């Protein structure tokens, strides 16, 4: 069962409220997405931890009905320069 982009975004924002989420449907089939998630809460976390936080937000659906989600995470620029 594919997931709607809006649902992916909602689940990420529910878990990471300050997240800036951009989702792209790569193949137009509702099954292959790329997501960029920017959040101040990622500051000081390793890349692995940042990705794990996003996967945790998706509550086990990643790797199951959501097969393909290319993930990019980042800390907002202003947080880095502070």
């Amino acid at each position, binding site marked *: 069962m594919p997931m709607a982009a809006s649902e992916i975004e909602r689940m990420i924002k529910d878990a990471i409220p300050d997240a800036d989420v951009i989702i792209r449907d790569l193949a137009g089939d509702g099954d292959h997405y790329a997501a960029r998630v920017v959040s101040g809460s990622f500051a000081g976390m390793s*890349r*692995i931890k940042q*990705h794990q936080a996003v*996967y945790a937000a998706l509550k086990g659906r*990643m*790797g*199951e009905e959501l097969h*393909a989600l290319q*993930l*990019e995470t980042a800390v907002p620029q202003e947080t880095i320069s502070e």
Partner: protein
Amino acid sequence: MSDAQARIADLVKANDIVLFMKGTALFPQCGFSSRAIAILDRLGATYETVDVLQDPGIRQGIKAFSDWPTIPQLYVKGEFVGGSDIMMEMFESGELKELLETA
């Protein structure tokens, strides 16, 4: 520790660079695994692969092993490095080359 967890731990310990993937290095069965192989080959790395499609225990177990829901997964010197997205970021920044050279 379950049998699968023990076998994964052994594989990770026994191989300096090991990629858990879908399919083989020659015939990856998934775009993400294919991308991971392309990165390792580009860096000239010598690596082992484990085809999770051949082993349901490892296929499920590897997700719990590093609390990571997707495959491929790269391990260098016993440490989990990441999936194909993180590999790509580290490839582009040069970090992966440095890391593999230590292995």
